[in-house]
Every structure is written in structure tokens, then in C-alpha cells.
């Protein structure tokens, strides 16, 4: 609260009652209850999931439409902007910790669980069980679940994907630069380039999965190597897809001229998110593919 004239808290924007959170309850319930039914092969799960997904889309559209409208009509002061920014920081922080649980699991499995099964330590289990198991990585475990697999190399598609994602970070910064200079053309071109690179990344990732399933016999069921590989790359890919959808929305808003050099929180929030998935990918490239 440094500048009194700039942001008196008496003008802090408090929205009128909004239906969207209440609608979100039904959407989330239908989506998750439906998923629980589908994975247990119960028929009407599909219906619930479809309804939930439609309702969620409607809710998100309506909620963001309200927020954009309020922003364009100038109801948000500097203090509201700061609330949004800080909210986004901590949302990304929680996402970092979500990925930390998967990276932590990978660390634990590679450095503690698998060596332990291979006989390391004074309580190593291989003396009693699995005497043939040596605990090398990658492994499908002492039971060799899923049969022989070929591990995914780092220098083919993954290296290409690293380049794609890193360049997309650069093109996004280029777009931001254009926005700050009020250069609409650079902004739109930068965003289109970023989205293209992001979608290419997702495409290559899908191709890599198909290749892994069909030719490398590397599936979700391929022991703990397959498990960690797919959960880390899968959740990352999901986040890239989500980020790309968010970027497309931002592109649409940019073309409508919603952003000004001084007022473009939504652009920055999505950019932070994009850089966050970028950094997670670097972690993946090092710890899942290379090491």
C-alpha cells in the first residue's frame, strides 16, 4: 500500500454474485464420478463425463467472459491486478509441487527402491527374493512385467522436442516484446509461432508414444520404467496441451485488441504458465530421457 492516490482499497473491485462456481461443482462432480464409473466399466459413465466436460467448458467460457468484460470496462484497479498476479504465482507454485511428487517418485525408485530390490544396503531384499535381479536402470522389475522393452533414447524426437519447446519460449518472449511496444503484428505473429511450436511438440510426443507402444514394447505396464516414463511425460504433455489452448485464447483476444502495453495480465499469466511447462520439460529431458 505504498501509493495512496493510486490504489485506494475503497475501490477494490468485488464482483456481484456469480453462478459459475456453483455450476463448477456439478461439472467437476459429473466429470470425476463419470471417470470413476468408466474405469470400472460401468456404462453410463460416458454420459456423465460428456455432460461434465460440456458443463465445465461452458462454466470456464462464462467465467472468463465475465472477467474479460470487467477488465475491458476498466473496473480493475492496480490492486486487483496485483491480486491476479500473486494468485497466478501461487497457482504455478502448486503445479510445481504436483510435478515434484512425480519427480520425487522417480528419484526414490531409481535411487532407493530398485537398488534395494537389487540387493543394496543391509536390508537388501535380493538375498531372500529375486536373487537374479541386479537392479539396473531401466528396468521392468524383478518380475520383468510387460516383457522385454527397449528404453526410449534421448537424442531423437526428445531432443527435437526440447528444441521446439525452447524456441517456443523465445517466440513467446518476442510476442510479449511486440505487445509492450504496442506492435499488434509482432504480437500476433509471435503467438502463432508459439502455438505452432507447441502443437508440433504435442504431435511429436504422440508419435513417440505410438512408436514406443508399437516398436519398443514400452507401455504403461512395462514395470516401473514404463510407469515413471508415461506419468511424467504424460502429465507434462497434458499441461502443454492445456497451455496451447490457453495460448489460442490469448491469440484470439490479441487479435481483438484486448491488450495494451500497460494492461495485459492474461497474456503474462499464460506466458508464465508456458515457461513453467518449458522448465518442467528440461527436467524431464535430463532425468527421464538422458540420465
Amino acid at each position, binding site marked *: *500500500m505504498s501509493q495512496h492516490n493510486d490504489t*485506494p*482499497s475503497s475501490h*477494490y473491485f*468485488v*464482483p*456481484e*454474485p*456469480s*453462478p*459459475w*462456481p*456453483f455450476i*463448477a*461443482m*456439478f461439472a*467437476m*462432480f459429473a466429470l*470425476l*464420478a463419470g471417470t*470413476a464409473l468408466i*474405469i*470400472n466399466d460401468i456404462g453410463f459413465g460416458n454420459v456423465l463425463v460428456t455432460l461434465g466436460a460440456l458443463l465445465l467448458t461452458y462454466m470456464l467460457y462464462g467465467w472468463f467472459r465475465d472477467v474479460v468484460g470487467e477488465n475491458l470496462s476498466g473496473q480493475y484497479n492496480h*490492486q486487483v491486478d496485483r*491480486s491476479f498476479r*500473486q*494468485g497466478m504465482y*501461487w*497457482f504455478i507454485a*502448486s*503445479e510445481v*509441487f*504436483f*510435478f*515434484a*511428487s*512425480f519427480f*520425487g*517418485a522417480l528419484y526414490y*525408485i531409481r535411487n*532407493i*527402491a*530398485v537398488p534395494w*530390490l537389487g540387493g543394496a*544396503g543391509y536390508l537388501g*531384499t535380493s538375498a531372500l527374493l529375486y536373487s537374479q535381479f541386479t537392479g539396473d536402470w531401466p528396468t*521392468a*522389475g*524383478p*518380475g520383468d*512385467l510387460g516383457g522385454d522393452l527397449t528404453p526410449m533414447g534421448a537424442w531423437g524426437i526428445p531432443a527435437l522436442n526440447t528444441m521446439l519447446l525452447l524456441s517456443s519460449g523465445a517466440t513467446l518472449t518476442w510476442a510479449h516484446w511486440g505487445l509492450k511496444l504496442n506492435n499488434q503484428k509482432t504480437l500476433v505473429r509471435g503467438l502463432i509461432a508459439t502455438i505452432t511450436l507447441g502443437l508440433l511438440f504435442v504431435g511429436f510426443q504422440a508419435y513417440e508414444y505410438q512408436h514406443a507402444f508399437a516398436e519398443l514394447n514400452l*507401455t*504403461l*505396464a512395462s*514395470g*516401473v*520404467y*514404463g*510407469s515413471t516414463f508415461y*506419468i511424467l511425460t504424460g502429465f507434462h504433455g497434458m499441461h502443454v496441451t492445456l497451455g496451447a489452448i490457453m495460448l489460442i485464447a490469448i491469440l484470439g483476444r490479441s487479435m481483438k485488441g484486448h491488450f495494451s502495453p500497460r494492461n495485459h495480465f492474461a497474456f503474462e499469466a499464460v506466458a508464465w504458465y508456458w515457461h513453467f511447462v518449458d522448465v518442467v520439460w528440461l527436467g524431464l529431458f535430463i532425468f527421464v530421457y538422458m540420465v
Partner: protein
Amino acid sequence: MSTTASALHSEHEHHPYGWRRWLFSTNHKDIGTLYLLFALTMFFLGGLSAMAIRAELLYPGLQMLDPDLYNNILTNHALIMIFGAVMPAGAGIANWMIPLMIGAPDMALPRLNNLSFWILPAAAMMLVLSFIVPFFPGGGTQVNTGWTLYPPLSVQVGMSMDFLIFAIHLLGISSVLASINIIVTILNMRAPGMTMFKMPIFCWAWFVTAFLLILVVPIIAGGVTMLLFDRHFGTSFFNAAGGGDPVLFQHLFWFFGHPEVYILILPAIGALAQVIPAFSRKPLFGYKSTVGSMLVIATLGMVVWAHHQYTIGMSLGTVSYFMIGTILISIPVGLIIFNFIATMWRGAMTFETPMLFATAMVLLFSFGGLTGVMLAVIPADVQYHDSMFVVAHFHYVLIPGAIYGLFAAVFYWLPKWTGHMYDEKLAKIFFWVNMISFNITFFPQHFLGLAGMPRRIIDYNVIFAEFNFLSSVAGLIYGFSHLLFLYIIIKAIRGGQQAKNKVWEGATGLEWELPSPPPFHSWETAPKIK
């Protein structure tokens, strides 16, 4: 502190009416009320399951439940109480009080605030479904894992486990969003002059708690996601044959589960730091050391999780680290308790109901903390673990700790919320019945545990019969005493003596400068803090 009079105007009060006011709310007070009513409902649901457990344990042998149903009820009791009652109650009080205490017009992100609330009923429906699905044809087996959900058992449970996993996801999303809101509100919405170190301790307690939630809830979300994949998509995270390790889940669970204990207790400690000075008519002794202690508790609390897993076969060095770290936490906790006692020292103390609960919390929570130090000692824990001693320990921490702290907060602020004084006489009766029956319920369980009675088992050896009988009878009295609590609350909502702005003579803080109940929109013009 002084306020501008314009903030107190209530004649231009325009608020939405009818169902839209509640379902579509963007008002921190209404959302706080919703949270509190939700928590109260879940508290009674969780209490009902506890009554079923104690009724079953009244005598040795099987009384009315079968073992699977007993374990199902046990699991649901824990999850409903922790995620449905205590956490939402804390969040409800935070919603009500933080903006009033820091002079903010509302929470920083009011619509998000309502989303945090409305995810809870969805999660509660999923929890209830996980309980009842097994009773439908083709519904699979019952959840019999306890709230810890350890694999491999949790991989083998029927589809109700999937509902439970998704309920945990929803509860996690709700907590993280609420925490983001609380952090942003505290960082960004304080009235001019309200520096961080002038802020009431209750706000500090929630600030620390919110960080803990953001850091640890995503870890359990990841953990149960892996569990879901192991159950349905053939992965081997927790399957040794595939190279995984069931112990990995324990680490992920307790990395969340231990800080969760502080998530439950810190808001209660924060409430006590408001109540005790008010009824001792002295400022809090050691404001900064209390804040510092909470920060140390949160930091240490993040790195001692494996003291729940001494018997899994970690190396001696590892378990020693976890033991020492755990015992170290008693230093900041002890410091807070010391500060509370020093605040009371030579104060002009009176014992209205909030202070009764606060005093009981100081005494009994310390006792629960001491048995915690016993459990932290490795060779002792190897004997005590999975016994009724553990049950007694954490109920001494969570009931006189978290729940008495919440009761103290509720009675302290109820006149502010409703505008009416509660029935002090009934409330005191409630306190004494509740406190005495609580102790008779849980104190004997220490002896049962030390004598070797295992926990989470429907039947027990006849040598444990007397203490179990005593515990059950007192437990049923304890459970029913909460009906009195419900009556007192309803009575205060419906009417009673009009509460003054400043309900308690010794209370300090911005919330007491507003009318009781505060107008729908408060602090639209920020108060000036000297």
C-alpha cells in the same frame, strides 16, 4: 487503532436476497458461513461414524458391524473429520475473520473463494459415494484401508477406492485454491498501516498454514494419482514385481500427512492467540516469537514425515534423523505454549467459554504433544506403533488441539457473526461435559495401547474389556454432548441478547470496531492503522 466512520454505515446496505445470495455468493462473510455450516454437518456425520465405532467396541466380540464395514466406517470417520470438518471449519473462520481483521473489503479473489467452497460439497458426495457404493450390486469391496490408503491393500479394494481418490483430488483443489486466496488477501489487501507485524496472529497462523497447504497437498494429489494408475492402467509404482515399492506411497502420503497435522493445528493456535490475550486483558506475550515458532514448526514439519514409518526398514541413520527432527519440533511448540502461559501470568483473567476451551487446549494439547515425543523415540515407537496408544495420542492432539481451538474461536466470534450473545450458562455446561467425557474416553486408550491392544481392529481380547467399556460409555456421552453445542448455536442465530460492537472487554482488533453483525460490505473504505 481508529477507524473512519464511513466504514460503519449500514443504511446503504444492498445485498442480494434469496437463494442467489448463498449459491452465487461473492461475499466473504456469506461464504464463511457456508463453510462453517458445511463443516458442522460433516462434523456430525464424522461424529456419527465415531459413535458407531465406540458402540461396536463397547464389548469384546462382534456387536453390530462386520469387520469390513467397521474398517469402512473407520476410514470415513478419519477422512470426514479431517477434510470435511476441521479443515473447512478453519477455512470458514479464516474467510469470516481475515478480511475483517486486516481491514479489507473482501477476500482478494471473491469468485475463486466461492469456487473453493463449492468444490467441497462435490467432494463430500464422492466421499459418501465411496462409503455406500459397495452396498450396490457390483459395487465391489469396501474401503478398508484406513485414511492412510496404503497399497497393496488400496490397490485391491473395489471401485469405492476410485471415488475416494477423486474425492481427495477435489478436496486438494479446494484447499489449494482457498490457500492461494488467503495468501493473496494477506499480502495484498491489508489496510494502510497494517504491516505484517501488526497483523493479528490468527492471520499469521493462516498465512503459514496456506503455504503448507500449497506445498504439500499437490504431493498427495500426485500420490493418489499414481495409486489410480496402479489400480487401473497397469503401472507398477507400488508393485515390487515391476520394480516399484509400496513404501514409496507411504513417503508420498506422509510428506503430506505430517504437515497436515500442522495444517489442522496452526489455525487453532492462531485463534488461541486472539482468545487468551482478550480474557487475560494483556497483550500477547512474545508476538514475534509466536510468529517465528509457527514458521519453524511449518519448516521442520515438512522434513520429518518418515517418523510415521519407523518400522519399514530404513537405515539407522535415516530413522535417527527423523527422530531428532521430530523431537526438535517440541521446542517451537513449547515456546508457543510458554507464550500463552506467560500471557495469562498476572493477567486479570476471566473464564468465559472461549477462555475455558483455550485453557483446556493449552493443557491437554501439551499432554498430546508429550505422548507425541514418546512416539517419536524409535525404540519406544516400535512397541507403541499401530496400538491404541497412537489413537489416544492423536485424539489428544486433534480434539483438545484443533477442535477445542475451533470451539474457542466459534464462541469468541459467534456474537460478532450472529449479532447475539450465546447462552453462556449452557455453553459452560457444554464445555465441562465435553471436556470431562473426552478425557474419560481417550485417557484409558493410552493404557489399552501400552498393554498391547492394536488399533483399527473390530474385536479385542477380553482383558481389555473394562477400559473399552469405560471409553465407549464416555465416548457416547462425549458424542451426544455436541447436540448441546448445536442447540447453543441455533439459539444464538435465532436470537438472544444483542451483542455490542466490542463483545469482550479485553478484546483488541479491527473486527471489534464494526457492528455485530457487521454490515454486508465492511471496510469498503480502509481503516487507518496507527
